[in-house]
């Protein structure tokens, strides 16, 4: 594998994502507006019932829901959409690495979603003054590892969704709300404060978002440092590696299967 073409492909795909996100005013409104609205609604609810200690959770949830939405709608279903539009054929007939394209999409998605996340933090901070007791090094490391493992999961989903037709969109709908709930975007989903039974907590722990949210809450609101949350950080790193390996393997396997069976980007005309 040559490094320079790989990097050029990755950079170009990241730019396409950014140009697309910021090229349409309506998209900007939708991308920025939705996470703020859900976050504000929950913050107001916590505020009105006097549970002000939870407001920070709601704001953090709003930040991460922006990335989670981006992973689902702009990563997981992207290759499937590309396939239906005839773009995936262009990728396959070029020497470009599909992994470089997916990683580029991830970078573009993270950078493109960052303003939305920043807006949730800014508005939440100004309106509700949430109490934080942060260990900032741990917060930053956890945040980065959560994003890496989350987008690696998006890459895996993107590869697996290639086998789907239009039902990929339904898969996203199926995943979006249940994952948002069990991963504890707005409340603790694992550990002693979780409302869920052990079985659901165990399943939820397989999702990077769950581990990441738990570690973020601990480092941001309880001041726990890297030394205290290292099991979560190691888990996130391992998850990222596993998802990247699966994604790479799945892409190759699906390409081979598609060429053999005529199932990817191939129509009988």
């Amino acid at each position, binding site marked *: 594998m040559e490094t320079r073409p790989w990097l050029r492909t990755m950079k170009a795909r990241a730019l396409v994502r950014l*140009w697309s996100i910021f090229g349409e005013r309506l998209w900007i409104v939708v991308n920025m507006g939705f996470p703020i609205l859900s976050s504000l609604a929950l913050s107001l609810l916590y505020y009105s019932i006097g549970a002000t200690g939870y407001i920070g959770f709601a704001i953090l949830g709003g930040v991460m829901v922006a990335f989670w939405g981006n992973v689902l709608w702009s990563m997981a279903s992207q290759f499937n959409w590309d396939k239906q*539009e005839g*773009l995936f054929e262009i990728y396959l007939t*070029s020497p470009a690495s599909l992994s470089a394209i997916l990683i580029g999409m991830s970078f573009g998605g993270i950078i493109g979603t960052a303003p939305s996340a920043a807006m949730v933090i800014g508005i939440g901070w100004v309106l509700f003054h949430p109490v934080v007791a942060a260990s900032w090094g741990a917060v930053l490391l956890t945040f980065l590892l959560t994003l890496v493992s989350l987008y690696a999961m998006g890459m895996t989903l993107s590869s697996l969704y290639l086998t789907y037709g239009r039902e990929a969109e339904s898969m996203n709908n199926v995943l979006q709300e249940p994952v948002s709930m069990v991963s504890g975007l707005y409340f603790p989903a694992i550990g002693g404060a979780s409302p869920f039974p052990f079985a659901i907590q165990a399943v939820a722990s397989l999702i990077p978002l769950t581990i990441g949210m738990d570690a973020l809450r601990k480092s941001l609101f309880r001041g726990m440092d890297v030394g205290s949350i290292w099991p979560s950080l190691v888990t996130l790193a391992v998850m990222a590696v596993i998802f990247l390996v699966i994604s790479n393997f799945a892409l190759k396997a699906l390409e081979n299967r598609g060429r053999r069976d005529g199932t990817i*980007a191939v129509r009988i*005309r």
Partner: protein
Amino acid sequence: MISGTQASVKVSDLRREFKTKEAPVVALDGVSLSVSRGEIFGVLGPNGAGKTTIIRILSTLLLPTGGSASVMGFDVEHEPEKVRHVINMASGADKAGYDFISAKRNLWFFSQLYGIQPQIAEKRIGDLSERLGLTKYLDRKFYALSTGYRQRATIARAFINDPRVVFLDEPTIGLDVMTARSIRDFLKDEVRQHDRTIMLATHNMAEVEAICDRVAIIDKGKIIAEGSPKELKRTLGVPALVMEVTPPEKSFDLLAQVEGVKGFTSASDEERGLSTIQVVVEDDGTARRAEEAMAQSGHKVIASWRKETTLEEVFVAMVGRGFKEREEQDGD
């Protein structure tokens, strides 16, 4: 790498089957052909004949189930990565690009899939756009381009990596006459000036006659004729007979009984109340007998004339029916 070949594209006894719930569909059944460097080679046939399948195998999107194929000496089955460095492909049906970014940025993005240096990519985009009449529209978002300009951008993309071999599938489908002509002129220039090879799958006979050096006519996964358009037309000997008859009918099967009739194709015009029949005939005597047979069957021959042979008549002579009838037959 397959050694000892001078051809840009070489296909030998190529087979491809698709599994379906009912029974396997044979899309290609022992196709062999060779395309020389610097040639525009057409693959002509009705829908469902197997043209797209050949293009997809050669552009590494599909594996053959039998036989072999190579592009610039690289085996498409075992060396797809090497093949992808020397080819590009475009399909007229897709006109693919990212809608919310400009045509220029789309072209730049696709150039980066080949790892092209940004300055070189910029220059190529400028040059290709100029020659395809796209320059004025480069900054428009892809969705805002008309069908014709989207297709020009698609064609520009197919040449962005300076490919040795370009595979095009119905590159001018759905385009107006002027746009189609300018794209054909561009393709001819590309081959002449840059020593490329173009392989073109189409069911547009005018396109093949306008730009192809050689053509393979394909039907039901088999090549039934191959040569230059002139050579193929010459094999028919005499001009085809065209008759306008009334009352219009869907089928004129009685013509198949006339001695010396090699095949025919017909189209009904309900508004004018007549059918136009093109009959491929062996000689002038056959043409006379065909007219007499029509008259005897109760049809009035309003007008008849002889026309210059086209490639469709070559197909009709080989198969007995035209593209349209073949597609309807397959759809039954």
